[in-house]
């Protein structure tokens, strides 16, 4: 679960990380009355998960209440424009009205899980305000990393060392170890996958402030934080994730693509290989779908309907490696599912192995489906039927 800026900053504030004064507002009116009540120099920032708000004109200055109202209206009027990762863009439902900082320096600080080292890693750069990938490319010498021993956790020397190695401006030195420590506490307490302050601002008057907040939580650890469930409901869940949850498969088990060959397999690795097989055969995949363990009628039906009703699939390629389950049982599950479904019918190509697989294929053929013997053959058949 990715948090919005204002949610991340709430966690930051609770953890003791300095953040700008701010107010989270849902309407231009609310923005106006907040600025009326607390005059000053403010910034109005769209609250969305997508990056690139600045370039999209979704961060704007407001010197007074009427200006605040106007820019909020403008920001809320249109969604974030689409990009490659978010082909549908993202609607904007609220803004953060925030103290405008007089910034002298912008640095970068993040903590994430390093897969290869199998440790938390702190990353600091004296250059902030741009993507970390851009920093890595343009200023590699400014990147300092520290792999944390989980038996020890954070200790202030880590912050001091990183501040020196990353070449942070001396103005950061006094505040930085405590801020990095608070960020680590937050990372650890929530079992986060990423916590990022970018930029970590040094203001003209010498304060060190988290000017933005990015927090990526681990869905598998959310059950330990029921206090966040409200946010969870409020977040613009990825549509594929909503659909997957609705069909009763794992949140990561379904993903749509623009093609017309629907796919389903048992196991994520096999599901990826199935997609690859369809591509290899010259087809265009409509989706990734891991049906998970077991392939009873209800589950197959849910998955079939998930694909048929939500993608451009004109054929459905089912690839089941019945490791432990029996082929005839799976076949019966599929046939029953197709009898029960009330959704539109598209042709099924079914590759099925496991004990009693010949019997399974016979059952499928009798029900008018296309049983095949191998994954490659199935992919070819499916592509053929789709076009």
């Amino acid at each position, binding site marked *: 679960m990715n948090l919005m800026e204002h949610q991340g900053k709430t966690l930051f504030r609770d953890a003791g990380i300095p953040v700008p004064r701010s107010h989270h507002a849902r309407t231009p009116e609310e923005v106006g009355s907040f600025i009326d009540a607390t005059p000053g120099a403010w910034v109005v920032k769209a609250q969305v998960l997508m990056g690139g708000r600045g370039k999209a004109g979704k961060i704007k200055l407001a010197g007074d209440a009427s200006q605040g109202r106007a820019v909020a209206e403008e920001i809320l009027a249109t969604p974030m424009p689409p990009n490659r990762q978010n082909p549908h863009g993202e609607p904007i439902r609220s803004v953060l009205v925030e103290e405008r900082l007089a910034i002298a320096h912008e640095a970068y600080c993040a903590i994430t899980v390093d897969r290869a080292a199998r440790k938390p890693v702190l990353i600091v750069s004296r250059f902030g305000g741009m993507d970390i990938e851009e920093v890595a490319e343009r200023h590699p010498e400014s990147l300092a990393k520290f792999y944390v021993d989980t038996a020890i956790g954070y200790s202030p020397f880590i912050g001091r060392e990183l501040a020196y190695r990353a070449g942070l401006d001396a103005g950061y030195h006094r505040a930085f170890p405590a801020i990095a420590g608070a960020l680590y506490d937050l990372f650890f307490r929530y079992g986060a996958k990423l916590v990022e302050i970018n930029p970590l601002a040094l203001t003209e008057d010498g304060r060190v402030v988290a000017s933005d907040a990015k927090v990526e939580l681990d869905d598998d650890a959310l059950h*330990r934080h029921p206090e966040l469930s409200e946010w969870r409901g409020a977040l613009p869940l990825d549509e594929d994730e909503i659909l997957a949850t609705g069909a009763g498969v794992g949140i990561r088990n379904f993903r749509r693509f623009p093609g017309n060959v629907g796919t389903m397999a048992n196991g994520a*690795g096999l599901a990826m*290989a199935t997609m*690859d097989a369809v591509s290899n055969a010259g087809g265009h995949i409509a989706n990734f779908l891991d049906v998970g363990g077991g392939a009873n009628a209800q589950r197959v039906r849910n998955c079939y309907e998930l694909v048929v009703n939500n993608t451009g699939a004109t054929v459905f390629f089912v690839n089941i490696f019945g490791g432990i389950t029996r082929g005839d049982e799976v076949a019966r599950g599929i046939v029953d599912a197709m009898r029960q479904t009330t959704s539109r019918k598209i042709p099924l190509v079914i590759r099925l*192995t496991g004990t009693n697989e010949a019997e399974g294929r016979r059952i499928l053929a009798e029900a008018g489906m296309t049983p095949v013997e191998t994954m*490659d053959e199935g992919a070819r058949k499916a592509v053929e039927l789709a076009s």
Partner: protein
Amino acid sequence: MSIFLDKNSKVIVQGITGAEGSYHAARMHAYGTNVVGGVTPGKGGQRTPQGLPVFDTVSEAVAATGATHSCIFVPPPFAADALYEAHAAGIALAVCITEGVPVHDTLKVVGATAGMRIIGPNCPGLVSPGKALVGIMPGHVFKEGTVGVVSRSGTLTYEVVDLLTRAGFGQSTCVGVGGDPVIGTTFVECLREFKNDPQTQALVLCGEIGGTDEEDVAAFIAEHVADVPVVAFVGGRNAPPGKSLGHAGAIVSGAFGTAQSKIKAFEAAGVPVAGRPSEIPALLASEVARRGRPVPAASF
């Protein structure tokens, strides 16, 4: 020989009276694995339908049976506790089947259980065909032989093993290392063991998008096992960035973890990469032939 697991391994099942645990304990037992018992707190003193003793704690089970290996079937919030318990009781190798373990739990467990090898979490386990099976793999697709197999996924592994077996390539040990971002045993760690295993004459590696395990193992191969026939496969060429495909660990982040990068790394290390699983046996045969080694399948 084989790696990690053989006839002498004494296996317990943590969570043996649960639905998954009891089902797979029976299957492992049926395969011929030396399953010596299981653990479910509060059910100590009972016996499974196979007559296996149930204990309240792992340390009791180890004291009574001399167990060396444990296969863990417990819900995700309790997986770390189960691994700590196995470690404290002196278990040498624990397979964690559980999917959905919080990544920080795995981080902490991996950092604090020195001396115990962990396979997984979120993995199908491992098999040394003809000797023992620990996990949820379907025993009938495996055949004893000389190919070491390492894979990040479950059913894809069975698919690949099935193809190998049909082509006459038996296996020494097949390890499903797991689909999570942080896992107890990586590709490289498996290869360090295979390197010293006389039974293993060739390797098949099934990688997928996400992380740098495949790149790391490619570098290891180039440096340490360049003389062994190796074939690789990488799943997920069609993955979009920023979204996990099924496995929590199968995610392309920015420029990292792409199938292209992994394929390039394998090829740079002289490892042919199969375009699809069905190509693996033929590629392996040609690698074996090219190096003038006996066809592995023939040695058994």
